[in-house]
């Protein structure tokens, strides 16, 4: 081999080696995505400039990974619980939906929720909802989860419309029932802690505007200001209030409720309580929507030409179990739609095989008939298979996914809203206004 060839070859070798190192560096950049800028590192000018444009779009998963790593490297205390970071991120995402029906729950909250779905309650023995007094759709801006560490005052500044904590069902014979708590009661304060509500803040804002427009003297504004200050010193958010009433098996809470413009004070000792399961009481079938209900229902209606179903205190039903009950009761067909606001075609609520000889059905409902139970009542009544007696239903027709996370926490996510078949407005109206 000539010297020229040799030197050309070795030069090629060196170039190849350098090129390979660069390829390795690039490969790593792609592996890590380089989310974190390192101003001190010797990044090429090009790269830094490129990273200053607005259209950098780092995929969510990579973003999460890189940020977690940065926290673990830098945070003043060791970060050992990775799962907590992931759950925190989920909490943040669910909270950003600002939907009182889509909620993140920590491990204890989620456990209490799942047990309540089986009829096993703790706390004061009642189910709650966050309501704004308006429809669900208008309530969206209401539920701000400001994350840990936020004070009630922060939230008052942040949120224009804070939902109120309302009783939507009461376990018969449970502590709340014994204290004569009623469906529809709104929690005003718990153990002296005022539950933040937007009415007072709106009043202050209106007064402030009036003051600026020189239509109100300062002294009047100060009265409202001082009232807010005094309350804010001992305030809590509606979600925290729910925890205090919904969770725990011991301890006593003093709760002030608002009922029809009046305040009622109750002292309630927490204890486990449970909703009666499937069964016949006074000729009516109590029908919770849990997995075993369809089978029991089938046996119970065998050979009967008319049945009465009691759907009161039924707020946490399970969709699959409810569908099985429909199969047992009514003929096959389409019983309305689950719709979304995503420009998708609706998903029909279908009974596949059904019961070709349906019994005459009477449903007992009231405000504590909500969610899956309300959808059930509307599905039957809109097709003319059932007549409704009692009061109108609660006004919650959301279908929710329930997801458990590896650390035991979990969340609910509204995936669709039920719409009954058209042409039955009279019946539908009776089934609860939304």
């Amino acid at each position, binding site marked *: 081999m000539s010297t020229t060839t040799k030197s050309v070859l070795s030069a090629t*070798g060196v170039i190849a*080696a*350098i090129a*390979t*190192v660069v390829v*390795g*560096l690039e490969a*790593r950049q792609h*592996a*890590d995505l380089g*989310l*974190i*800028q390192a101003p001190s590192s010797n990044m090429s000018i090009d790269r830094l400039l490129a*990273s*200053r444009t607005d259209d*950098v779009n*780092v995929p969510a*998963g990579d973003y*999460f*990974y890189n*940020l977690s790593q*940065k*926290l673990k490297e*830098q*945070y*003043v205390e*060791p970060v050992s619980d*990775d*799962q*907590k*970071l*992931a*759950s*925190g*991120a*989920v*909490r*943040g*995402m*669910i*909270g*950003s*939906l600002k939907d009182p029906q889509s909620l993140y729950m920590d491990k204890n909250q989620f456990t209490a929720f799942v047990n309540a779905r089986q009829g096993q309650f703790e706390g004061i023995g009642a189910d709650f909802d966050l309501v704004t007094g308006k429809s669900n759709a208008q309530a969206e801006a209401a539920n701000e989860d400001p*994350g*840990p*560490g*936020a004070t009630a005052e*922060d939230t008052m500044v942040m949120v224009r419309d804070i939902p109120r904590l309302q009783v939507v069902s009461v376990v018969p014979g449970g502590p709340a029932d014994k204290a004569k708590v009623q469906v529809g009661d709104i929690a005003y304060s718990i153990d002296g*802690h005022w539950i933040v509500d937007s009415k007072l803040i709106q009043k202050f804002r209106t007064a402030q*505007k009036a003051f*600026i427009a020189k239509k109100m003297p300062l002294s009047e504004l*100060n009265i409202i200001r*001082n009232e807010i*200050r005094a309350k804010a010193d001992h305030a809590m*958010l509606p979600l*925290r209030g729910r925890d205090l009433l919904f969770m725990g098996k011991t301890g006593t809470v003093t709760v002030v409720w608002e009922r029809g413009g009046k305040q009622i004070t109750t002292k309630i000792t927490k204890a486990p309580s449970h909703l009666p399961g499937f069964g016949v009481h006074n000729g009516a079938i109590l029908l919770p929507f849990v997995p075993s209900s369809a089978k029991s229902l089938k046996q119970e209606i065998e050979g009967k030409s008319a049945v009465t179903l009691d759907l009161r205190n039924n707020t946490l039903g399970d969709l699959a179990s409810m569908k099985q009950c429909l199969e047992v009761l009514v003929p096959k067909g389409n019983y309305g739609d689950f719709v979304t*606001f995503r420009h998708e075609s609706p998903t029909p609520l279908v009974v596949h095989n059904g019961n070709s000889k349906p019994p005459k059905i009477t449903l007992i409902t009231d405000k504590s008939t909500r969610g899956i139970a309300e959808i059930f009542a509307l599905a039957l009544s809109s097709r003319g298979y059932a007549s409704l007696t009692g009061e109108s239903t609660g006004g919650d027709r959301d279908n929710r996914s329930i997801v458990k*996370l*590896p650390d035991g926490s979990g969340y609910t996510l509204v*995936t669709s809203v039920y719409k009954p078949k058209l042409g039955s407005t009279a019946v539908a109206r009776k089934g609860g206004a939304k």
Partner: protein
Amino acid sequence: MKKAGKLFSYMGILVICFLFGFCWQDIQKWKAPSSRALGTLFGVKSASAATPEEEFQHAYTQILTDYVKPVDKSDLKYAGMEGLMASLGDPHTMFMRPKLAEAFSDETRANFGGVGARLTSDALGAKIAVVFDDGPAYSAGIRGGNIVTAVDGKSVAGRDIDDIVSMIKGKEGTLVHLTVIQAGKQKPVAITVKRARITAPTVESKYFADSQVGYLSIASFSEPTAAQFDHELAKLEAHPMKGLVIDLRENPGGLLETAVDMLSRFFENKLVVKMKFRDGHEESAKTYPGVLHEFAYPIAALMNEDSASAAEIYAGCLHDYGRAKLVGTHSYGKASVQNVFPLVDRSSAKITIAKYFLPVTPFFGRKVDEYGAYTSGGLEPDLKVELSTGTEVTFGDPKSDNQLQKAIQLVNPQSPAIAAN
């Protein structure tokens, strides 16, 4: 045979070169490459069923595809990042979206493209509260008390003050057209102002002739604050001084360097704070020599629950070295230091990287109860004075500001008593 062997060794060298490049950042840091990076290299997915990353990814995808309403991808991603950072339970460790990150950096630099005025809300638009000397608004004839009713032809009556401010702010050198109501003029006038880089004053001074006490209000500790402090102090010291009140109320803090710089006027080579990092190492900040100033009069520092961070370090050191008495209510209790890490999409991560310890005062970090309400922490005042409620207080006005009244009397007991109203 020999040729094949040579080929293999060349290949081997290239593989080593590639791995060298791939692991270069680990070699720099002297640690093993992350398993995630190696996984990407060899195309292996992490074995365990749900890594935290997958848990996050799953929820992210589910919300995007299943939620009853459409969700903005990037909003959802950022909400997730906010939640991730909030999960540590430290209110100072947070994710800042691009817009927030920019506002934050505006604030610490205290300069931005603007007209050089501070605005407050008004029913007709925005009222000019303060016009900065030498700013473009001042040159264009805008004065305090004027009311801006329209910006670039758009009426701003009834709009949020923050919105109006961001409409007026803009790129340096560009023009903004304002409609302004001025005292003594029948009709609103149209004024065009050329935006400029604005250095907002963070120090304001007042001299109270009746008590011969000077008053310096420090709004925050940003880059120009130390120089502004010297400038305003010199203005005060042109008068006879029986005492000085430094007002740190509502001062959220700012740059530690600035606080150290300003403390160096009081004492040389003294410890300001010790910072303890998570790996156990400690760093301390000390005042430096050469800028000592003689304060030949008593000093009081006003603080309240909104005095935080650098303001607490400043007040704490003045107190610990016996240079000032603290007056007012307890401070916030922000005894930690954060670093802001910029991210490629213009957002940033603010992370608590160390805890602060003052020279004498024990650790003063804020503690809250389960409802987020204050329980302990912050600096305790030497003279506790609650702000009077029921009357409108203007900070820095000795007639209505009862905390200031007490501070004046503390530094100059001979000062004529002011009838509290």
